C-alpha cells in the first residue's frame, strides 16, 4: 500500500509541475509585452525584456570635445567632460571598439603622442596634451556601463497623449459599443420568434442561421463596400456598425435561440393564458431570464469587434483620424522605425480592455462557448 501511495504523490507532483510549465509557456509571451511596455527604447533595443529586473550592462562610446573645447591649465591643454549618462555607473573603458573595458576606472593611458586620457570612476574624463589639440572630431572613448534596473511609465504618457492612440482608442470604442448593442436587440427578438412562435418556415430559418454561422466574411467585403457606396453610406461609422451587426447576427440568434428553447414552457404558456401579449412575454419574461445568454453573446461580440482588423480596414478607411487601435498597431508594425517602446505600449493598451472584460466576465464567456459548440456541433 505504501508503495502505491508514494507513486500517487509523485504523480500529483508530476501533474502539478507539468501544468505549471504549460501555464508558464502560455503566459510568458504576454508577460514579455507587459514588461517591455515599461522599458525605454534603449533598454528594449539592447537587452531582452527578461533582463529588465537585473542591472544592465551596456557598451557604447562617447566622443570627447575637440580642440575648441580645450582650456589651458598649467601650460597644458585640457579637455574635460563625462562619459556617463544619468543613472549609469562605469565598469570599464577603452579606446578601441574591440576592447570597451580595457582599462579600469581611474587608469590613464596615452592615445597619441603626448595625449593622456584618464577616465575617473564618476565618469569624468580628462584629456591632456602639451601642445594644442589638432582634431576635427573628438576622440572616441569606449565605455562599458552598468545601469540599475529601471521601469518607467513614460511610454504610456507619451502614447496616450502624443501618439494619437487616444484618438484610436475613442474610435475603437465608437465602433465597438453600438456594434455590440444593436445585434443583441435584433437577435433577441428573432431568437424568441424562432424558439417560441409557430409559423411555417421556422425549421428552414433555423437551419439557415446555423449555415450562415460559418460564412467567411471575406465573401462579403467587396459586395458590401459597393452596396454601401451606392446607398450613400460610404466609409464611416454607420457602415461599420451595420456590417458588424450583420456579421454578428448568426451567432447571436443561434446562441439566444438555443438558450431560449430551454426556458420552461409552463411559464410562457401560463402568461399566454393570462392574456399577456407576445411583446409583454418577451419583455417581462424572456429577456430577464435570458440574461446569461445575452451576456455571453455581448462578450463575444465585444471581443470580436474590438479585436477586428479586417472589417475596420475595409469599412472605416485608413486615414489617421479613422484608424482603430488594431489599425494603429498594424501601421506601427509595418514601419521600420524601430519604435519598439511605442509598439509595445500601444499593443498593451489595445489588449488591456479585452483582457479586463475577459477576466471580469469569464464565466459568461465559458458558458457561451459551451452553448455554442457542444450543443451546436
Amino acid at each position, binding site marked *: 500500500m505504501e508503495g502505491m501511495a508514494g507513486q500517487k504523490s509523485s504523480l500529483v507532483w508530476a*501533474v502539478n509541475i*507539468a*501544468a505549471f510549465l*504549460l501555464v508558464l509557456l*502560455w503566459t*510568458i509571451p*504576454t508577460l*514579455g*509585452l507587459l514588461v*517591455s511596455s515599461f522599458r525605454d527604447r534603449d533598454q528594449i533595443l539592447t537587452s*531582452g*525584456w527578461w533582463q529588465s529586473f537585473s542591472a544592465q550592462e551596456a557598451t557604447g562610446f562617447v566622443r570627447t570635445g575637440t580642440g575648441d573645447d580645450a582650456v589651458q591649465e598649467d601650460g597644458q591643454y585640457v579637455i574635460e567632460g563625462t562619459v556617463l549618462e544619468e543613472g549609469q555607473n562605469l565598469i570599464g573603458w577603452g579606446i578601441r571598439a574591440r576592447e570597451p573595458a580595457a582599462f579600469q576606472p581611474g587608469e590613464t593611458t596615452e592615445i597619441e603622442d603626448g595625449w593622456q586620457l584618464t577616465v575617473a570612476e564618476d565618469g569624468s574624463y580628462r584629456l591632456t596634451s602639451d601642445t594644442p589639440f589638432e582634431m576635427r572630431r573628438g576622440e572616441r572613448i569606449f565605455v562599458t556601463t552598468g545601469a540599475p534596473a529601471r521601469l518607467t511609465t513614460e511610454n504610456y504618457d507619451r502614447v496616450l497623449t502624443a501618439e494619437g492612440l487616444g484618438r484610436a482608442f*475613442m*474610435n475603437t470604442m*465608437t465602433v465597438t*459599443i*453600438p456594434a455590440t*448593442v*444593436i445585434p443583441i436587440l435584433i437577435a433577441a*427578438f*428573432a431568437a424568441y*420568434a424562432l424558439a417560441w*412562435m409557430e409559423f411555417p418556415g421556422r425549421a428552414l*430559418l433555423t437551419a439557415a*442561421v446555423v*449555415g450562415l454561422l*460559418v*460564412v*467567411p*466574411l*471575406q*465573401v*462579403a*467585403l*467587396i*459586395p458590401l463596400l459597393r452596396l454601401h457606396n451606392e446607398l450613400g453610406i460610404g466609409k464611416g*461609422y454607420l457602415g461599420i*456598425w451595420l456590417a458588424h*451587426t*450583420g456579421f454578428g447576427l448568426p451567432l447571436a440568434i443561434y446562441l439566444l435561440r438555443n438558450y431560449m428553447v430551454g426556458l420552461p414552457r409552463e411559464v410562457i404558456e401560463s402568461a399566454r393564458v393570462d392574456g399577456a*401579449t407576445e*411583446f409583454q412575454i418577451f419583455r417581462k419574461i424572456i429577456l430577464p431570464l435570458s440574461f446569461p445568454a445575452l451576456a455571453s453573446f455581448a462578450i463575444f461580440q465585444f471581443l470580436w469587434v474590438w*479585436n477586428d482588423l479586417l472589417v475596420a480596414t*475595409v469599412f472605416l478607411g485608413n486615414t489617421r483620424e479613422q484608424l482603430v487601435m488594431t489599425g494603429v*498597431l*498594424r501601421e506601427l*508594425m509595418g514601419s521600420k522605425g524601430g519604435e519598439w517602446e511605442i*509598439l509595445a505600449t500601444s*499593443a498593451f493598451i*489595445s*489588449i488591456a480592455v479585452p*483582457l479586463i472584460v*475577459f477576466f471580469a466576465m*469569464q464565466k459568461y464567456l465559458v458558458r457561451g*462557448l*459551451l452553448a455554442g459548440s*457542444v*450543443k*451546436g*456541433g
Partner: protein
Amino acid sequence: MELFWLAVSTIAIGVFGCVAWFWGSNLILDRIYPPRGPNAGDNIRKANQIRPWLFLGPAILFLGVYLVYPIFDSLWRSMHNARGSEFVGLSNYAWHMGDGKFRESMRNNLLWLLVVPALSTLFGLIAAQLTDRLKWGNIGKSLIFMPMAISFVGAGVIWKFIYEYRAPGETQIGLLNAIVQALGGDPQLWLTLIPWNNLFLMIVLVWIQTGFAMVILSAALRGIPEETIEAAILDGASPWQVFFKIKVPQIMGTIAVVWTTITIVVLKVFDIVFVMTNGQWGTQVLANLMYDWMFRGTPDYGRGSAIAIILMLLVTPIMIWNIVNARREVR
C-alpha cells in the same frame, strides 16, 4: 469629444429605433386585429401569423443583405473581369489554378488546417486534463484561456518580441533566439526561414486557440460518468490507460466539434499573416491573397472574388455538417 457624443447618440438612436420598431409594429398589429371584441379568436389567429415576421423582420433583412446577398454577388463577380464589366466564365478560377502564389496559398492553408486544429486540440486536451484536479487549476485555466481575448494583431506584436532576430554574438532581444544562443546555436530569422516560418506563424494561432479547446474539452471531461473511470481503475488501469482508453473515446464527439470550430477559424486566417509577414517568404494564405487582389494596387474584383468563393466552398462541407447535426438535435 464630438466623437463621443456621436457614438452615444447613435447608440441611443439605434436602440431607440429597434425598440420603436418592435414595440410600434406590435402595437399597430394589435390595432388592426384587436385581440378583444366580436372577432377576437379570428383576430388573434391572424395576428399570430403575422407577428413572427415582425419579430424576425430586421434579422432577416440583415442576414439577407449582409450575408446571403454577398455570396451571390461574389459568385457573379468571380465570373467577371476586374471591373465587373465583362463576363469571363471560369477564367478567373482557371487563372488562379496556374498561379504560383495561389498554389502557395492553397498549400499553406492546407498546412494550417493540418497543424493548427491538431495542436490546439492536443494542447487543449492536455491542459484540460492537467488542470482539472489541481487546487490552482482554475487560475491556470484562466491564464491559458487568456490569449483568446487578445487580438490577432496584438498577438502579432507579442510574438514579435519572441521571434526578433539580432546578428550572432549580439545580445538577443527575442526570447527564442536568446534561448537558442544560450544553448550554443546560431540565432535565426524565424519569420523568413522557409518553410519553417509557416510553422512559427501557426504557433501564434495555436497559442490563441488552445484555451478555447481546453474550456470545451474540460467541460466534456467532467461530463464523463464517474462509474466508467472508477470501474477502469478498479480493473487496474494505469492513469494513462484511463485517459486514452476510457476518457478520450467518450469525448470524441466534442473533440470533433472543437476540431471543426478551429478549422473554420484557420480557413479564414488573415490578421496574423497580414501583420507578421504579409504573405512574403512563402507564407501567403488565401484570405491575405484575396486582400491583395482586392485592395492593393489596381483592384481586381474578379480574381479577388474568385478566392472568396473558393474559401466559401472550403467551409461548405462543415456548414452542411453543422446543419445536419443541428436538425438532428431539434428533432
